[in-house]
């Protein structure tokens, strides 16, 4: 287990190094001169050269990368071209919004998908199973940019239950905060619900064919007891993994919802930076997200072992 953990950590570090290299290299390998793209076709050659020097684009690629890496290790992800703000500062400033959105969406997705999957797996082929499975298929076909405006129309505009847009910090009251966060979180959660339901439904199905389920039924235990207390846990390992990966993906994957609801999160930082061609801010934010994603995935990978007592034994 220790060797396993060490291997994972080393691999994660290598992946982070290579991935951040790609992020840095992206600025150089982009077709055409980036400086020209930034300044527009009418820019003078002097201005282009000056900008290239400032961005370090005139250096060889590996020097650019090691320069970037040296700064990044000390927490310097660069300075925004547009706002002159430290990129890491603006990322950290916006991170709580995105984190809350991702966490809330994850909680909603699990709270909805687990009962859905249990109800479906309980009686395969029944109307409940079919409805649940069909809803999951529909959910998978409802990406945020489709579902968010529709939710706004029905729940905010028509029913008036939620604000159309905007954000309140948790500091200004949990109620107000949730009032603003809930609808975006639901929009983020819908495709996740569908993915979770399908995965858990499949895993439950194979668990329910196991001998130990028959043995539990032979003890006269009720269906719901067996589902919750015997089938759910051994079926949930891949779901927990997926939920972890989803969480990582949602940090930065909530761009659309943040755009629809004008939320001050990490996604809108990237979208806004792209719109104003602030490549340094994009680079820093993307590097930050990739590192976070790899770290979370590695933790999930290692943590997976501790969920299953059979694996846990090998750890001791």
């Amino acid at each position, binding site marked *: 287990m220790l060797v396993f953990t060490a291997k994972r950590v080393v691999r994660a570090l290598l992946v982070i190094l290579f991935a951040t290299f790609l992020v840095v290299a992206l600025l150089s390998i982009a077709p055409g001169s980036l400086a020209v793209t930034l300044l527009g076709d009418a820019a003078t050659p002097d201005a282009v050269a000056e900008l290239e020097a400032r961005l370090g684009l005139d250096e060889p690629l590996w020097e650019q990368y090691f320069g970037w890496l040296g700064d990044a290790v000390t927490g310097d992800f660069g300075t925004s071209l547009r706002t002159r703000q430290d990129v890491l500062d603006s990322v950290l400033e916006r991170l709580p919004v995105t984190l809350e959105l991702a966490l809330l969406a994850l909680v909603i997705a699990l709270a909805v998908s687990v009962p859905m999957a249990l109800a479906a797996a309980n009686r*395969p*082929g029944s109307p409940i199973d079919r409805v649940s499975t069909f809803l999951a298929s529909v959910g998978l076909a409802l990406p945020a940019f489709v579902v968010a405006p529709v939710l706004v129309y029905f729940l905010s505009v028509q029913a008036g239950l939620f604000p159309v847009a905007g954000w309140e910090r948790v500091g200004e009251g949990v109620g107000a905060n949730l009032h603003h966060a809930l609808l975006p979180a639901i929009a983020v959660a819908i495709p996740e619900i569908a993915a979770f339901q399908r995965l858990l439904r499949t895993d439950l199905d194979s668990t329910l064919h*196991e*001998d*130990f389920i*028959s*043995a*539990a*039924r*032979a*003890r*006269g*235990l*009720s*269906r719901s*007891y067996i589902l919750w*207390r*015997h089938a759910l*846990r*051994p079926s949930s390992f891949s779901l927990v993994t997926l939920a972890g990966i989803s969480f990582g993906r949602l940090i930065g994957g909530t761009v659309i919802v943040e755009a629809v609801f004008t939320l001050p999160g990490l996604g809108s930082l990237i979208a806004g930076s792209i719109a104003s061609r602030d490549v340094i801010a994009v680079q820093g934010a993307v590097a930050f997200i990739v590192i976070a994603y790899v770290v979370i995935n590695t933790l999930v990978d290692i943590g997976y072992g501790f969920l*299953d*007592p*059979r694996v846990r*034994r090998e750890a001791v």
Partner: protein
Amino acid sequence: MTGAPPLLQIEDLHTWIATDAGPVRAVDGVSLEVAAGEAVGLVGESGSGKSMLARTVMGLLPDRASTSGSVLFAGVDMLTVSEKARQALLGPKVAMVFQDAGRALNPVVRIGRQITEGMVRHLGISRSEAQERAVGLLTEVGVPDPRRRLSNYPFQLSGGMRQRIMIAIALACEPDLLIADEPTTALDVTVQRQILDLLDRVRTSRGMGLVLISHDLGLVAGRTDRVAVMYSGRMVEEGPTDAVFDTPRHRYTEALLASTPSLDTPRARRMRVIEGSLPDPRRPPPGCRFAPRCTARTEACDESGVDVLRDGVLGHRHACVHPTGTPGATALTKAVAADETRI
């Protein structure tokens, strides 16, 4: 053995399973009785339907299965009873020991909960009281250091220990009948006898009925009052264990005995293998299902309906058209056997 109604009374039971290629006739018209406190052996090759019979009694059939006939347990028809009523019987009235305890114990649930959950549900006792009883049960089935075992997971125990725990779970609610489905197949030979002896001991001390299912005739020989032999979903022979072993009547039973190498086999026979394999359970032969593999086969064997149990001495019944011990048939057997070498 007359008068009192049997504990378990299976009457003309059919358990068919729907598949894309037609129904699999796993159990196809089987009747069997088990009296209170009686030990009955149920013997047959894998695929003969004996496990499916046990699963039918316990209501553990797959969704695509269908049944007809009746399975009366303590006067209740297990085939038609409501799910709730059946759950109330499973555990306190009838319990089952599975073939492979490694697979029949939930790998991620502690031993303690797996033993106690049934007691809490059926006996209405508290968790801590059930815990105390579980310690007693584990002691009874010979698990050392029982208190510590309760917090173990199944993978932390040996195969023999796991099977003992399966038995403890089955005994937890003091059932009147225990169905043991190949309880020792997954175990080392040295452990097999211990487990069988354990089953014997708890049965006699508790006065419990037992259905011991096995593909191994020798295994049930000394441990059951009566034995029933199944082949391809049909019952082919049934009677007092000694009678079936000493004078098997059905050709299949005879062949099975001859092919079982065991010290328990009463007479020294030469090892023999039954040629061929079980018939397709979707399209069984019209008459005797063993006929295609039988050395004594005649045209009469292929008539539909010939494979019904015929009464015999001491309740020793068989379904053979040409039972062994009939002089003519023996001559025929030899003739057919001689003929076979040329095919």
